[in-house]
Every structure is written in structure tokens, then in C-alpha cells.
């Protein structure tokens, strides 16, 4: 394997791994902030226990997000030096703005939240979690603006042999960036909702801390329901924009080979990249793809064959990742909608609770699949239409990259196993037991 492939694998691994932890940070911070806010407003100690219990899982997850994020920023320089030199004027500044305006806030206040229970008033303490949540959201915004620029470069001129910024406002406000931001953030919120619902379902099934976990479940359910609906509606708009801006990606997402009006969509198919066709097509319906992409059944949709072979993204991976993401997206709406109607008597629906428990990994899969669609679907470009991935890689030796790739694989796998084992362990244990008044008295008597 050459430096290019190894670097791509390494970057995919590092990003994918980072993206296992970041979405939960984004959504769970908001849920915890709401819990703590309710504690401040009502004085109900159960909300405080909720914030502490979910906070414990949050912290384990958070640290993994932090340490894996540090490597990402440096990997553009280590492995993608030519990319960095070519687009650093724009891309680099977005990363620097993210660190300065958002990541500092998040990392500083996480410590205040963690260590500050006895040092701050309840109100001030609850505020720190709001700051963490806001900082996480800002952070996601800047990173997605940077990624959107790779998907659809705007606000630049080619000068001095590189892309130079000429309209910062255009970069930050381009609709594609806003779409990606809403899409990714909603996904993160769904994931966090399902995380809380799944763990709560486990305890409700076991009839442990019923009120505690029903409350948690209901909060997470409302959150996940809202964003599941947002995700589907907005995902459709986002897709239409991809059709406009990245027609080759759209064609790969749908494994659509011929340029036609009334482009069809099939219920099932298997792409055949060698033969430039689809196998096992089931139920192709005329005009559906045209309708979805351009809101007009007669619209012409460019097929993969329209693009030179060396400008087509890998079809099979993009296609299946897209189908998985969309399928799961609809499933999330159904699951949360059903839960919404049963929310007051959840304990009477053990099958639903079991489904929710085993659904915890599904949003993780959906988010990784979405990321694959975005990044693999952009290939062979690193910056769409501007720079190919193969022209972006550093001049480094194969041995170096092979060694670091294996190191990433080993270290990250071990860390993931350790992190998820700890999360599962503490999720299963449930909240710390309430100190019983009788116990305190007993203690005094013994003394």
C-alpha cells in the first residue's frame, strides 16, 4: 500500500474514531444542562442526581473526544502537507478560529463543572454546562464550515499558486455549510437522545430507579423526536443541494449510471462498478429520483457515466452508506414517534424498551455512514473540483505512515474498548444510591 492509501486509511480511522465520541458530547451536554437547570428551578434533588449520573458517562466520553481531536488538527500537516499549503489560508484559519473561540471555552469549563460542585452556587454550576454545550455547538459550526468548504469551495481566488481567501463572509455563511451544520448537529442530538433512552430503557425494564429513568427517558425522547423529524425534512433539502453542487456524489449515492430525464429509483440494487450498471434492481420507479433531487419528475439527473472515470467517487460504499443512513433516519422517526404516544406508561411496553436498548448503536452507525457519504462521496477530490486527494498527500515515507497507522489502530482500538466498557459498566450500575436518613442516624449512634 502506498503513502496515499495509508494516509487516507489513517485519516479515515482518526476522524471516524473522533466522531464516535463527539456527537454524544454535543447532545448530552444539552440534556445535562436541562437537567441541572430543572434542579435549580425546582430544587428537586432527583434532577441533580440525573445530572451527576449522566455527567459521569459524559466525562468518560468527553476525554476521548478531546484527545482524539488533538491528533486531527496536526494530521493535516503530517499527512496532507500539500493540501495544507494549498488551502491553509482558508481552511487553517477556520480551525484556528474554532480553537480560539470554542474549544478553549469547552475545555476550560468542563473542569469547572467536574471539580466545581462545592465551589459554585447551583445556578452558576448549571451555567457552566450551558457554556460547555454552547461551546461544543460553536465548535461543530466552525469544523463543519471548514468541511463544507472542502465540499463546495467559495469565497476564494487562486493566487500565488494556492487558494487565498477573498470573502470570509461567503465562506462562513454559505448555505451548504449551514445545511451540513444542521444535519450533523441534529444527528448528534438524535444519537444522544437514543443513548439516554437506551440506558434508561434497561433500568426501566429492570424496574430500578423508575422515576429517575422515566424522567430521563422522557426528556431524551422529546429531544430525539424533534431532531429526528428535523433530520428527515432537512436531510431532504440537504440532498437536493448536493444534487445541485456535487452531481457526481449524488449519482454515486443513488448508483445512477445513465443521464436521463424521469430518473428512476429502485427499492433495492447492487452497484456493479466494473460493468457500470446495477444488478438485482428491484422495483425501479420512474421519475422518483428526479422528483427527490429536483422536485420535478421530468428533471434530468446526471448519471455516473457523464463523469470521466477518474472523477467518479467509489460507488458501492457511497451507495450503501447513503441507504443505511436514510433507512435509519426514518426508523428513528418511527421509534421516537411511537415512544411519544406511550411516554407516560413506558414500563408497560417491555418490547419497545428492549428495542430501544438495542437501538443505542444505530445512530452511531447512521452518523458514521453519513460521514462516509460526505467524505467518500467527495472523492477523488479533497477540495471538490479544485484539488484531488492524490495531489494533497505529504512527501513522507511509506514506513512512517504504515507504523503510525498501525499505532493508531492499536491505541485507538484499546481506548475504544476501555471507554465503552467503562460507559457500559457505569450505565448498568445506575445512579449513586440516595443517602438514607436512617443510615445517617445509625452512623451517629455507632459513633
Amino acid at each position, binding site marked *: 500500500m502506498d503513502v496515499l492509501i495509508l494516509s487516507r486509511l489513517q485519516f479515515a480511522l482518526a476522524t471516524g474514531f473522533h466522531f464516535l465520541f463527539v456527537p454524544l458530547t454535543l447532545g448530552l451536554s444539552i440534556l445535562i444542562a436541562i437537567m441541572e437547570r430543572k434542579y435549580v428551578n425546582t430544587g428537586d434533588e432527583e434532577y441533580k442526581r440525573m445530572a451527576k449520573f449522566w455527567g459521569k458517562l459524559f466525562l468518560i466520553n468527553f476525554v476521548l473526544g478531546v484527545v482524539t481531536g488533538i491528533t486531527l488538527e496536526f494530521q493535516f500537516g503530517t499527512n496532507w502537507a500539500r493540501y495544507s499549503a494549498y488551502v491553509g489560508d482558508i481552511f487553517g484559519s477556520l480551525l484556528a478560529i474554532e*480553537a480560539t473561540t470554542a474549544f478553549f471555552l469547552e475545555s*476550560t469549563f468542563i473542569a469547572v463543572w467536574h471539580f466545581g460542585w462545592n465551589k459554585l452556587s447551583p445556578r452558576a454550576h448549571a451555567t457552566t454546562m450551558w457554556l460547555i454545550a454552547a461551546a461544543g455547538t460553536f465548535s461543530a459550526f466552525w469544523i463543519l464550515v471548514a468541511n463544507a468548504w472542502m465540499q463546495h469551495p467559495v469565497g476564494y481566488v487562486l493566487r500565488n499558486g494556492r487558494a487565498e481567501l477573498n470573502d470570509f463572509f461567503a465562506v462562513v455563511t454559505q448555505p451548504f455549510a449551514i445545511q451540513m451544520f444542521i444535519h450533523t448537529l441534529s444527528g448528534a442530538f438524535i444519537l444522544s437522545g437514543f443513548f439516554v433512552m437506551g440506558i434508561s430503557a434497561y433500568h426501566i425494564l429492570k424496574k430500578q430507579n423508575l422515576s429517575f429513568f422515566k424522567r430521563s427517558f422522557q426528556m431524551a425522547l422529546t429531544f430525539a423526536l424533534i431532531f429526528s423529524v428535523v433530520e428527515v425534512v432537512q436531510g431532504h433539502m440537504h440532498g437536493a443541494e448536493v444534487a445541485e453542487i456535487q452531481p457526481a456524489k449524488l449519482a454515486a449515492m443513488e448508483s445512477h449510471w445513465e443521464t436521463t430525464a424521469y430518473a428512476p429509483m429502485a427499492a433495492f440494487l447492487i452497484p456493479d462498478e466494473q460493468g457500470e450498471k446495477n444488478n438485482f434492481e428491484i422495483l425501479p420507479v420512474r421519475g422518483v429520483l428526479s422528483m427527490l433531487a429536483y422536485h420535478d419528475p421530468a428533471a434530468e439527473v446526471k448519471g455516473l457515466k457523464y463523469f470521466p472515470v477518474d472523477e467518479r467517487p467509489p460507488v458501492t460504499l457511497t451507495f450503501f452508506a447513503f441507504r443505511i443512513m436514510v433507512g435509519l433516519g426514518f426508523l428513528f422517526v418511527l421509534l421516537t414517534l411511537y415512544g411519544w404516544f406511550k411516554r407516560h406508561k413506558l414500563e408497560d411496553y417491555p418490547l419497545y424498551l428492549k428495542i430501544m436498548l438495542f437501538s443505542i448503536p444505530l445512530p452511531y452507525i447512521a452518523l458514521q455512514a453519513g460521514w462516509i457519504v460526505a467524505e467518500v462521496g467527495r472523492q477523488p477530490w479533497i477540495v471538490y473540483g479544485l484539488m484531488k486527494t492524490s495531489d494533497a498527500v505529504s512527501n513522507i515515507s511509506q514506513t512512517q505512515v504504515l507504523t503510525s497507522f498501525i499505532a493508531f489502530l492499536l491505541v485507538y482500538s484499546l481506548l475504544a474498548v476501555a471507554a465503552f466498557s467503562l460507559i457500559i459498566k457505569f450505565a448498568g450500575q445506575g445512579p449513586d444510591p440516595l443517602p438514607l436518613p436512617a443510615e445517617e442516624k445509625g452512623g451517629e449512634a455507632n459513633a
Partner: protein
Amino acid sequence: MLETIWFVLWAVLWAVYFILDGFDLGAGCLLPVLSKDDKDRRYIYNATGPFWDGNEVWLITAGGVTFAAFPGNYAVMFSALYTPLLMILFALIVRGVAFEFRRHIDDPRWKKLWDICMFAGSFVAAFLFGVAFAGIFAGIPIDEAGHFQGSIINLLTPYNILGGALFVMLFMLHGSIWLAIKTNGELKNRASNFAKKIWPFVTLSGLVFIISTGFATNVFNYYMSYPVLFVIPLMLLFGFMLIWFFIEIASWWKAWFASGLVIGLTTFFGLAGIFPRLLPSSINDQYSMTIFNSASSPLTLKIMLVVVIVFIPIVIGYQTWVYYLFKDKVTEKDLIY
């Protein structure tokens, strides 16, 4: 002009990173040295626990600013220093995770594992940062295309290794002073005795480093054209004396500021001498990465300047507040880790 301002900001950001993360990396290196039992180790973790994460963001910012202001240099420097940089990142990963993971399973073997990660991660990061920065002062073999010619062995010159050793010792001094501030009793005595004992070695290494900089680098050539710069090594020596003085009168906060000053000045000492280079080439100075051949466009530099001028003071503001909030000694009831 813009490029020069950014050079200064770039140097300041790296210096601030070393000053801040320096004490928690140093405390990590001291974990096996100063602790007798698990409780001591927990105190050491808790003494740096509320700070390490915020400190490491200065690294992200220093890296981000290198990318934003000098993308050409970011590309050449980080691909040339590929292996040491990734080793630093892995070291920071395992020690960062150690803070959170260690406390969760009450098994001596589990704790031992993370203590090793904490020590090794802190040590490797401190050492390699020193090697890398000494390497930057001395220049590294990059050709005219900005490609690194050589291997990691070329980075391990005696001068660079001395730089690594100096960083480790400086951070250990900085960390032991911090632990003297944050702890009580036996552990505090051990930390303060350690600071006293290591001080002569750190100062001696600092002196040797300054002198060998004259032989191994071109730093002093630039100093010759701007003799006012000799103020930096002089202040550095003065800083070492200040540390000694404050340690002697057991004024630990002041000693900590002094050791921070010394770390900052050590960074400036070399970086001031390579200006306007960001990464000198040891093959031919023509191939060096400079603020002129690697800077971003004026527009980006201006936008980033506004961002930094507005936000860095805000960051300094809330981070100072956090240091103030957790200024007291760690006590039994504070033991979260």
C-alpha cells in the same frame, strides 16, 4: 509588518503553551518520583486535574495558528517532524485518558497501568517538545521543495537531546513547585525538597544549553545584528536566580511564576534568533521556511488578528478565573481522581 506581528504571536502562543502545560507535564513526570502510596498519587492527579485540559488547548491554538498564519511552514514542519510529532500526540493521548480512566476501577493493576501511561506520556511529550524546539533553533535538513532529507536519527543530535533534557528538567522543576503550592504535609515536603535539589541541575543545563546554542545554531548571528536581544538570555539567567530566591524563602507562587518565566524565555531565546525564519534549513539557508515564503494572505492575517485580539484576552480572563477558583490546596474532600 503583519507577518512580523504574527511571528511574535506565534512565538507567544507556543511559549504560553509550554508555560501552562509545562507544570502538569512536569507533575506527570514526577508521579513515580514523589509518591509513596496511592493517596499521594491521587493528590498529584487532583493537583493538575482541573487545569490540564484547558492548558492543552493552547497547543491546539498554537498548532491552529501555525496552520492559519503560516500554512507553508505548517505543511513543511509537521510533515518533516512526522514521527516525533505523532509520538508526542500519542503520548498526550494516553496521559490525557489516564486522568479520566484511572479513577474508575479500584484495582491496583488498573491504576498502575494508567500511572505508567501518565508518567511515560508526560515524559515523552516533554522530551520530544524539547528535541523538536532545539531542532527548530538549530535547523533541520529540509531541501528546496520543503521535503525532509534524513531520518529521525538526524533529529537526535547532541544539541537537540540537550534541549529535550532541559525541557524535561524545566517542566519537572515547574511541576514540583506547583505540587508544593497545591499539597500539604509529607508530599509537600518531598515536592519542595525536589525543587531545591533539581534547581542547580536545571540551571546548569540552561547555561550549557545557552552556550552550546552558540556552537550548534546560528541563533547568535541574528543576536549580533540586534544586540538588544541579548537581554533575553540575561533575563533567563536572572529568572533562574529568581526561582532559587523564591524557593529559598518558600514563596511558592512566586517561584512558580518565575519558573514559568524561565520556560517562556527559553522558548523566546531560540525563536528570537531564527527570525524571520520559522524553520531554518540545515542544508541551505535559502531553503528555510520564513515568515515571507510561508505566510497567509494579508486578508487572512488581518481577520485572524482581529479574532486573536478579541478572543485571547477573553480566554485569559476565564482561565485566570479558573486558576483563582481552584487556587487552594487539594484536600481530602477534593479528591475526585
